[in-house]
């Protein structure tokens, strides 16, 4: 989440107070959905902690949609803040798992190579 988004959120109550209406959170919705999709693309569903977070993101996106339907754009906006944070965490956890898997493969490959290079090793 960018600094700009945070400042926007902080300014929203003021805007609401002035305008007496909360804008529909189209961009936050797009950002949250995009983050959830990215998390799944890198394998969030295959990693339990990441899967939990991306499911939470989905639920909150659904709740946000329901809030928008009821005209409660403010609630929807904050639900999407939560959803996006969960989706981005799921994405990070999935990336982390992939990096750990790659590291483990490198260790195994390195061990095999060193074993093969050891004089007298059985091929």
């Amino acid at each position: 989440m960018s600094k700009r988004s945070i400042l926007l959120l902080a300014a929203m109550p003021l805007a609401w107070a002035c305008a007496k209406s909360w804008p529909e959170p189209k961009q936050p919705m797009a950002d949250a959905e995009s983050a959830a999709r990215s998390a799944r693309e890198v394998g969030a569903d295959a990693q339990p902690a990441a899967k939990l977070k991306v499911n939470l993101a989905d639920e909150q996106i659904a709740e946000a949609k329901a809030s928008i339907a009821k005209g409660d754009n403010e609630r929807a906006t904050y639900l999407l803040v939560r959803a996006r944070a969960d989706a981005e965490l799921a994405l990070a956890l999935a990336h982390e798992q992939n990096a750990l898997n790659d590291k483990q493969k490198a260790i195994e490959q390195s061990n095999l190579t060193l074993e093969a290079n050891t004089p007298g090793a059985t091929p």
Partner: protein
Amino acid sequence: MKALSTLGLIMAVASAGCGAATLPPELASARSVYDRASHGPAATLNPTDLHTAKESLDAAEHSFKEEGNSQVTRDLGYAAERQAETAESRARAMQAVAEKEQIIAGMHAATETQAKASAAGLVQANQQLASKDQALQVQGVALQTEVQRRKEAEKRAAQAAADIAKFASIKQETRGMVITLSGSVLFTSGKSDLLPAAQLKLNDVAKALTEQDPESTMVVEGHTDSQGAAAFNQDLSQRRAQTVRDYLVSRGVASDRISAEGFGPTRTIGDNATAEGRANNRRVEIVVKPKT
């Protein structure tokens, strides 16, 4: 006064309502997770995400200060906690990537070192093999030359022995090969000067001896019969042996391979009572001893 009391009551109630709000668990968790993240690898590896988490936490803190335990405060706290966790997770991923690259670099370095060592070993082994091969070729040539030389020497020796056999007897005894020359063939009676005909015969003997094993040694032994003074016979046998030895040296036999020794009448092979026996006893023997 009543109005003032009423106003005071209203203010007290309002004050109580705005009193210290309960810290929402989302904000408490966000503080805790951010604190942990800011003291972990994220501080150095992922300061950008950590900074974003800090800004979210600040927004949540601001909301808490302004609105207390509101839904907005809880939502912002929730997001701040997740962002701090995200910063930690990305830092761990960066760490794993860096470690993986380090492992791969180490593996490549080890493989390269091993390959260089193998190549160097191979070059050395090839050089050693080439060197051995060359040495073997040289040895092979030398061996062939030696075999050929020996064959020729054996052939010449056989021919020389056949020539010697015409005027001398050749026997193989435990002390070596014994070439026996009759004294009458070589010398005038009682003398130690070689007869002219004897020199021709000794030429053949010298030829045969030079064709023999170059490491063998020879002893020329002089023998007499028992007639006459023993001291004379001893001296005569010594002089005759020495004459033959010197002549053979003059014909090419290496002087350090051949010696002379007189035995007088002490080693008889025939009966001194008969003319034939005495003739047999008057002799020169050349004993060829192979290298021991």
